[in-house]
């Protein structure tokens, strides 16, 4: 897609930080920006098609819902990484799965209703893959705020 202009950037920041809980949220955004609702919708549509906006909606809080979540890692031989990654991707509750630049090379997150279920899934995965899975649940969350400031120029 063509480079973002200042209106696109303003839309992206509003969508991330200040998306109205309202019957016509895009109309409210348009009024705040001094442009038409149609333009807001069409610009958002373009940025979705371009893959920049993954989705618009909500993210629930794992802990408030009582779910158990953990970051897991394993040392998997290079030749078996793809196979292991596929097995991990198939597990319900896996949202992130990355190959990383460390001896512990596969890293994934697992979010399930209970700790017991996590333990069972990881034990089964260990026997399927024949590697040890290290589980590192959070003891304390200091920050989760995945907002990307699209208007500040930090080129310096």
């Amino acid at each position, binding site marked *: 897609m063509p480079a973002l202009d200042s209106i696109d950037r303003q839309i992206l920041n509003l969508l991330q930080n200040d998306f109205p809980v309202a019957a016509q949220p895009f109309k409210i955004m348009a009024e705040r920006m001094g442009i038409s609702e149609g333009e807001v919708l069409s610009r958002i549509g373009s940025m979705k098609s371009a893959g920049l906006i993954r989705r618009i909606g909500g993210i629930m809080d794992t802990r*408030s*819902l009582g779910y158990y979540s953990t970051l897991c890692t394993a040392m998997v031989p290079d030749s078996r990484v793809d196979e292991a990654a596929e097995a991990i991707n198939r597990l319900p509750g896996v949202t992130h799965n990355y190959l990383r630049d*460390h001896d512990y090379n596969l890293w994934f997150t697992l979010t399930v209703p209970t700790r017991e279920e996590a333990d069972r899934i990881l034990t089964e995965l260990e026997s399927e893959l024949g590697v040890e899975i290290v589980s590192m649940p959070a003891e304390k969350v200091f920050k989760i705020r995945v907002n990307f400031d699209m208007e500040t120029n930090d080129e310096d």
Partner: protein
Amino acid sequence: MKIDSIDLGILELIQGDLPLQSQPFAELSEQLGIDVDEILVRIARMREEGTLRRWGAVLRHQQAGFTANAMVAWKVDPAEAYQAGHKMAEFPEVSHCYLRQVPATFPYNLFTMIHARKDVKLHEVIARAANETGLNDYLIIKSLKEFKKASMKYV
């Protein structure tokens, strides 16, 4: 949080992608047989209670220009962890900061995800975070390949 069938319908909608149209709740309102206002009241309540952690757009940060990203794991003494964690959290470039239970084979217990537009900036942020927290033993663990990245769907 007590969840009834209306909440379930709302959760299904908002954990996905709202329809990109003037009245994104109109269809759900018809399906559930309740007013749009009732849907909005419930969403607002979830936000207040904190069960709805975030409301709005989820970006793909690479496409948004944030191409310099790293997981940085820091070794911190448990007694100093809270102070260090709160300092890390103040950096706008830090999206996630967690203290984790770790095994002896991986003694880096404070995890941060850091995002920047350029490598130079990423490394400058890491250096500043190290300086401000006094944590000098850390690993910069970059991703080589993304096998999966999705939003969790609950219920």
